[in-house]
């Protein structure tokens, strides 16, 4: 276990290094000069040159990158060009909100997706099954922004059941999490349905029935855990996709998370923030995958960590 973790940590560091290098290189090539951007319209050429020098943008790429890596070693992600604040502080202040939303979103996605998938599998080929599959398609084809706005319009603006925007109370998290959940749920419903159909045909399900176990228990206690493994693996893959969703959902629901920060930074070519957010989300994805791998043996004891 310890050796396994050590290996994964090393792997994580390598991945992060790789990502840092690629991102740095790519951002360096983007045709937008942050110094010009900061200096604004009224700046003289002298001012622009000064700003460029102060930011170290006049240095060769390699020097800039090594300097950045040096900072990383001390947990320093640099300073935002536009906000003139430590990127670490900015990210740290927004991390709790994003984590909350992410966890709630994944929970919603699983709750909806797994439930629908199980229902569809149990009632295979029935009307209900078809309805679930069409619903899952509709959500997959729906733009997130629109879904978010619709939910907000109906449940917050019109019915007033939930607050419209902000972060803090459990009521605030419901709609954003639901938006994220609805869209992912379509995928999960499909995955769960097909594995569940497989599992329901397994010998051990027949064994359970032969023991006189009630149908609900057969499905939930005997079959479902066996169908969850692909779902867990999918979550690992999914976290990356989630980041894109966060940008939209956070914007609509005024959720003070990393997605908003990233979005603004991209608009402003605020390279230190973009770098920071990229690294943090890469870390989240890698950790998410690690977590999925660590959970897998609990779901299926046959799996051993290698």
């Amino acid at each position, binding site marked *: 276990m310890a050796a396994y973790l050590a290996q994964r940590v090393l792997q994580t560091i390598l991945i992060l290094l790789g990502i840092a290098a690629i991102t740095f290189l790519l951002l360096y090539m983007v045709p937008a000069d942050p110094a010009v951007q900061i200096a604004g319209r009224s700046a003289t050429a002298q001012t622009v040159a000064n700003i460029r020098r102060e930011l170290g943008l006049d240095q060769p790429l390699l020097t800039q990158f090594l300097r950045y890596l040096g900072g990383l070693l001390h947990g320093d992600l640099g300073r935002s060009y536009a906000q003139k604040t430590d990127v670490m502080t900015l990210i740290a202040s927004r991390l709790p909100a994003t984590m909350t939303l992410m966890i709630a979103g994944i929970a919603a996605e699983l709750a909806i997706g797994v439930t629908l998938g199980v229902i569809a599998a149990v009632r295979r080929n029935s009307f209900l099954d078809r309805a679930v599959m069409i619903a899952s398609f509709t959500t997959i084809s729906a733009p997130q922004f629109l879904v978010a706005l619709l939910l907000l319009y109906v449940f917050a603006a019109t019915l007033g059941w939930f607050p419209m925007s902000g972060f803090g109370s459990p009521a605030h998290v419901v709609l954003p999490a639901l938006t994220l959940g609805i869209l992912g749920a379509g995928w999960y419903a499909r995955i769960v349905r097909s594995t569940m159909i497989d599992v329901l045909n397994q010998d*051990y399900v027949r064994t359970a029935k*032969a*023991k*006189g176990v009630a149908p609900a228990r057969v499905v939930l206690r005997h079959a479902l855990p066996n169908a969850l493994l692909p779902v867990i693996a999918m979550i690992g893959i999914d976290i990356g996709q989630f980041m894109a969703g966060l940008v939209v959902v956070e914007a609509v629901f005024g959720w003070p998370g990393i997605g908003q920060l990233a979005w603004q930074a991209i608009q402003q070519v605020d390279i230190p923030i973009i770098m920071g957010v990229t690294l943090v989300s890469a870390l989240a994805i890698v950790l998410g995958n690690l977590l999925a791998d660590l959970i897998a043996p609990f779901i299926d004891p046959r799996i051993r960590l290698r």
Partner: protein
Amino acid sequence: MIPADAPGPVLAVDDLWVEARTPTGPRPILEAVSFTLAPRETLCLAGESGSGKSVTSLAIMRLLPKASLRVPRGTIKLAERELLSLPETEMRKVRGGDIAMIFQEPMTSLNPVMTIGAQMSEAIRIHQGVGEHEALGRAKDMLDAVHMTDPARRLRQYPHELSGGMRQRVMIGMALSCRPKVLIADEPTTALDVRVQAQILDLMRELSADFGTSTILITHDMGVVAEMADRVVMMKTGRIVETSSVEDIFLRPQASYTRELLAAVPRLGERSGTDGPPRLSRECEPVEAKTALPVLVVRDLNVSFHQSGSLFAPKPAPVAAVKDVSFSIMPGQTLGLVGESGSGKSTTGKAIANLVPWTGDILLGGRSIRNLSPRELKAVRRKAQMIFQDPYASLDPRMSIGSLLAEPLTIHGIGTRAEREERAAEVLKRVRLSPDHRTRYPHEFSGGQRQRICIGRALILEPDLIIADESVAALDVSVRAQVLDLMLELQETLGLAYLFISHDMAIVERMSHAVLVMRHGQIVEAGSRREVFENPRDTYTRELMNAVPVPDPARARSKRGSRYLASEKAV
């Protein structure tokens, strides 16, 4: 066996019909099946594969797949209760409570993600209304009753942590934990090793006596029938052809089907006093091994599997699957390779086919296969072909039989397209399949047919040596006999040499000129078939032979008491 003052039957099946829904209307699966089960009796349902044994048992449990099968007619009475019209909630109490069932596959019949304890205590909680703790206690007692070592620990283990034999014990324990009146065991031992099978059969007998349970035992193994049954129900294509006591079945079979079946069963010791397998073809003379050169020589073969270590953890020691094995095979001869599961038989075969990394020397047709370039290796592979254990698994399900048969030729660049097709048709005829079958896919054949396709595939390259790894294990008795005969015939006409891998002693006896007995990766006994079978020197060899069920009720029962295993405790 049946006491004179027998009360009414525990279970009575009367005029049971089952039909399958097909696009072209209902197709009968069971027709007018009737039998009774007396208290404490063991009734065997026997018959070829597909005869309706499993469907009968599922119908009793009312677990037939609703979408495809239904019962249009018939009654099933448990004591005085009619099961077919019982409400589902009532029926749930019957399942596991009054009637318990053990399924064929111990490997897949236990839920892989639940502990043994959770699975065993579940039935107890449902049917006896006791709490979690109490149920676990009783489950532990049951594990004791099925002779499991360290029952307390087993409760916390998962199925994959147990061997096949242990899992079947758990299944039996689970089935008997609520003291059911009827136990249905559907092929409870086919997947197991001979020695483990013997232990499980002993256990079942012991427990049903202790618990006073009546048993329906489903099997196609006539040896098991002889050992276990009080009465036998013979089935064929959904009908009962004969119901008699076990003695009558073996000594005075009525139905012609029963007679055929018994004739096809190989019996251990059948060929004592002879040197080789029986000759089947008369017309041609046996190809004499004129050249004294063996087709295959294996010297000091070692195979070990490396477990993958991690970057930081030390590498675990490699598992030695085959240790210092040496033997040779002459042209036209069969070398039988026996041994229990996991003894390294398949690994040896795979090493010769160069599918696993190995050390030592392997000479095919006098030529070492070590360090060959891919092209040379390809040429050598032509000479030695392998037939895998499971014919279904070893045929690409997405290729038609025609392409599958022609593929070896394509790989080796032999002939034109038309020629290849011709050869494929020829080979199909040779293995007694119709050339029309070329456009069909593997799933459209029966097990026996598939195995013939595999043989055909091996033959098409005209090899000198065929490695047959458990080639008939998956087949029905009668089909198995046909396939074995075919193999013998081909040997006679083509002068093939076989490395015949099997754990079934009777079959090896029938097929081989010489025999190797393997255990834990090593050869424990080697010699001509006659030496090994008539005069086994090693205790392990003797145990293996002893464990084989004898299809003769009188001998089977006399053997019962004397069976004991010297080399190992209960598995």
